[in-house]
């Protein structure tokens, strides 16, 4: 019997484990725990140098043709998850946790380290404004943000975004900017006062990517390989998991899919299945910390009560993707020495929307050029030409809205055991982005409302709010300490407990909150 059992090894699970380990507790961690078993050779050096010398079919496409999914499937997919080296992240998710989805495209992971294996590593502290609807104060989270900043190694800087991204204490220096991002940021610094008066602030992102060697890991080498293989300079929860396992600080049990719990007078029993054989297995413990992700944590809660009638809310950050062109860079050589993910952040306090929106300015150097075939209204050869002379001048802004910007989806358990997710139809208003597009033009980045894309709901992969925390919770809601209403020993450590979603990457807030809840569970 384990004193504490954690379900899930993603960002929330490993953060909860870390908090317990710091209190001298050795928790059991249950997880399906898939790892990358693809026989793809590791690339050393720069992606584009490698491609000039070697056939990159194994790296980009793979014998299963996973890298061709964008061309083979009619449904939109997440490019990074199609890479052969990333296939393990979503392996068997559809079989282990089947979904029936309407207007929602959930991405699930049963990998060791969860979806964090393929994340953009954006790690943004929360500020008071983000906690408006939380029965939790920032003072309760700050110590965990500090601790995680030291554990992870986060690059960033104290700049105009600090009021939105919190204290810059303990950050490593920011990453080098790509050519286009540097020009945009220089223009921002020249026009800063005007832009700030219209609610636009720009600055460096806070990312779990090392700009200098840290804790035995190397610094970013600007190799553009971020889409194609795990890179030691990018933090993922799997790094902490590996560290905890190697130090024997947790009892890690991979190969297990937890299905439900049963509470008894002196503890609880977890009913699970062996991932490979399907055989039933049981675990007994004192306290359960659910960190299987907002969707699967809700599934376990509904299955534990055999509840086929309740509909739970499911929040997500609506996003818009804004393609941007820097006209002065048309025809310029591709910046092959760039960090292939987020370069800069922009925060827009939009008077028109009455809310704060956050944009991530992303370089397009890491994905395959073919990803953009057909995106230009030109012939096939014209598209190839545009890939050569326009793509080096292009960036993409991923604009995040708070979860409250659209009605939540509904999640329920079907009699056939599938989880049903239904999202209401909702189109984001592109015309209201005119002030943002004008500000971006001042930064030398041009776009047009007609070019803005709205990916399917679920594409942001920021799922939350299925079991929200309240001061006075009801059924399927949590107390502020994370304990699930109607239970004595079940705590919700992941984003399922969020009552709202701010317009920023939730990972860091989720990790800090998981540590807070694990600590509360240990104390109680």
């Amino acid at each position: 019997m384990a004193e504490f059992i954690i379900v899930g090894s993603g960002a929330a699970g490993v953060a909860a484990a870390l908090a317990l380990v710091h209190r001298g507790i050795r928790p059991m961690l249950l997880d399906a725990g898939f790892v990358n078993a693809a026989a793809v050779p590791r690339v050393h050096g720069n992606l584009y140098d490698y491609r000039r010398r070697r056939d990159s079919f194994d790296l980009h496409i793979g014998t299963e043709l996973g890298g061709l999914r964008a061309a083979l499937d009619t449904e939109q997919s997440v490019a990074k998850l199609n890479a052969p080296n990333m296939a393990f992240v979503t392996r068997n998710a559809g079989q282990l946790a089947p979904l029936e989805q309407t207007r929602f495209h959930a991405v699930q992971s049963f990998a060791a380290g969860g979806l964090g294996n393929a994340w953009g590593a954006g790690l943004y502290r929360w500020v008071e404004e983000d906690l408006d609807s939380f029965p939790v104060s920032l003072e309760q989270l700050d110590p965990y943000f500090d601790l995680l900043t030291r554990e992870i190694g986060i690059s960033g800087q104290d700049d105009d975004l600090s009021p939105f991204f919190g204290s810059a204490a303990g950050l490593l220096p920011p990453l080098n900017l790509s050519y286009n991002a540097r020009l945009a940021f220089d223009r921002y610094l020249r026009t800063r006062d005007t832009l700030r008066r219209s609610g636009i602030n720009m600055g460096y992102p806070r990312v779990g990517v090392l700009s200098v060697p840290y804790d035995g890991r190397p610094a970013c080498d600007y190799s553009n390989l971020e889409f194609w293989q795990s890179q030691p300079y990018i933090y993922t929860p799997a790094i902490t998991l590996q560290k905890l396992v190697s130090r024997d600080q947790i009892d890690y049990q991979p190969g297990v899919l937890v299905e439900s719990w049963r509470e008894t007078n002196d503890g609880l029993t977890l009913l699970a299945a062996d991932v490979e054989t399907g055989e039933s297995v049981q675990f007994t413990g004192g306290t359960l910390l659910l960190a299987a992700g907002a969707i699967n944590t809700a599934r376990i809660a509904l299955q534990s009560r055999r509840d086929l009638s309740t509909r739970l809310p499911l929040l997500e950050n609506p996003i818009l993707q804004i393609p941007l062109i820097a006209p002065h860079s048309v025809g310029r050589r591709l910046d092959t020495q760039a960090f292939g993910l987020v370069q800069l952040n922009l925060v827009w306090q939009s008077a028109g929307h009455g809310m704060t929106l956050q944009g991530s300015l992303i370089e397009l150097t890491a994905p395959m050029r073919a990803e953009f075939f057909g995106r230009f209204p030109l012939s096939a050869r014209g598209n190839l030409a545009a890939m050569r002379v326009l793509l080096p001048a292009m960036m993409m802004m991923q604009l995040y809205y708070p979860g409250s910007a659209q009605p939540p989806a509904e999640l329920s358990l079907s009699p056939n055991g599938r989880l049903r997710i239904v999202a209401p139809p909702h189109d984001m208003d592109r015309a209201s982005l005119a002030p943002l597009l004008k500000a971006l033009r001042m930064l030398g980045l041009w776009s047009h409302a007609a070019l803005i894309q709205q990916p399917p709901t679920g594409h942001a992969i920021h799922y939350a709010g299925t079991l929200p925390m309240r001061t006075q919770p009801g059924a399927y809601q949590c107390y502020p300490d994370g304990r699930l209403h109607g239970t004595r020993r079940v705590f919700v450590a992941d984003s399922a407990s969020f009552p709202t979603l701010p317009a920023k990457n939730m990972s860091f807030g989720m990790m800090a909150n998981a540590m807070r809840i694990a600590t509360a569970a240990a104390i109680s």
Partner: protein
Amino acid sequence: MLKQANPDVEARLIYRALFGGTIPDILARRYRQAAHQLDRTAEASELAAVAHLIDQNADLEAAELAGRLTGRLSLLTRKFAAMTYLAETLPDHQRYFVTHRSSLVAGVMVLGWNGLLTAVKLAHGLWLLRSVRRG
């Protein structure tokens, strides 16, 4: 019986439309595997339309452009996309995707020239699609 294009001829014509010249053997082999997957899930009408265009040795680039811009014949666009992905993995095809020399003037001229060609191809492609509908 379902009418489908000969995969070897299809690979050769799509490659020629995109890059000109003769398709390398390794690329043809990989493309056949991808096309097999595409054809398995494609609608019969789209398969027949692509087969008809290939039988006629039609200008596939023009047909693909017209199909893409009018929201028809997505199968052909996905076949072009698959060929593009596969070609990008070959070292000797990098020049089609990445430029290592900077020239704003050359860049603008390339785009302008391709804009003009696109207009011509579009007109031809719309005519081709009409003939497919009639045929």
